[in-house]
């Protein structure tokens, strides 16, 4: 299920509409993930404050969306473009890759709630494919 030119255009078009709100999207997506999928809290036991809106969650949401922004810019070769992030996730963070799917879902729910007119089914399928490809690239170095 590789990204077609149509998918890449759709992702870039959607990103240009939403990227000004990237920090807000990231904050909401991470907050929401912790609430809807409480098992994800296990990765953040070192944060003193896990309540939605906390500075830790805000900062982490910003970091995640920074990664997405990088991925958009490297959309033609995600494996190479996200190589450093993959190393980090594989050897340092060791996040179970099943969680990438969970966070991707939360990101898309937030985008849908904030940009209902832009997150059409066509945009959705391309973004879903893109985020799945990002997850794959992030897991590249795991084993």
């Amino acid at each position, binding site marked *: 299920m590789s990204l077609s030119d149509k998918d890449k255009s759709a992702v870039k078009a959607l990103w240009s509409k939403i990227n000004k709100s990237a920090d807000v999207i990231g904050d909401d997506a991470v*907050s*929401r993930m*912790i*609430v*809807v*999928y409480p098992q994800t809290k296990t990765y953040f036991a070192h944060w003193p404050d896990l309540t*939605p809106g906390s500075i830790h969650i805000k900062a982490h949401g910003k970091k995640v969306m920074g990664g997405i922004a990088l991925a958009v810019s490297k959309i033609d070769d995600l494996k190479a473009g996200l190589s450093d992030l993959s190393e980090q996730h594989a050897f340092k963070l060791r996040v179970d890759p099943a969680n990438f*799917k*969970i966070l991707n*879902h939360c990101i*898309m*729910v*937030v985008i*849908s*709630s*904030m940009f*209902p007119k832009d*997150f*059409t*089914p*066509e945009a*959705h*399928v391309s973004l*879903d494919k893109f985020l799945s490809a990002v997850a794959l690239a992030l897991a590249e170095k795991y084993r």
Partner: protein
Amino acid sequence: MPENSVSADLQTGSDKMVEWTDFERDTIKDIFSRIKYDVVGPAAFARCLVVYPWTQRYFGGFGNLYNAAAIKGNPMVSKHGTTIIHGLDRAVKNLDDIENTYTELSVLHSEKLHVDPDNFKLLADCLTIVVAAQLGKEFTGEVQAAFQKFLAVVVSSLGRQYH
């Protein structure tokens, strides 16, 4: 086929009733009282056919599903979307016995329609996205959690009679 859905997996034993908090009950009923059935049902089902095109395999008799525009404008898709959401309504009205409410539907989907139960999760994810679009800011994390728990129970019940 790689697993696509993230709807929460629920394991409900046959004697174990699902327990709902007051917040969850109120939230689920509130969502269904606010959404437009003839908008959300068709939108979610059409989105599922677009985002997960392999789900079209069950709808060979639906005519033109060639692209997103055709799917969205297809009257059989709209009709079936409305049917699905009214089916969910039955679960909302029987929150404490969704399993038995869906026994016949489960048998139907397994024995007659031969639908891979993984598809229920895909449709559930599309419903979440569409309801999020409808409710906007009010679709908070807590509301999403309640809604996804409800959908997980529905999905589990629909798969129960498969063998």
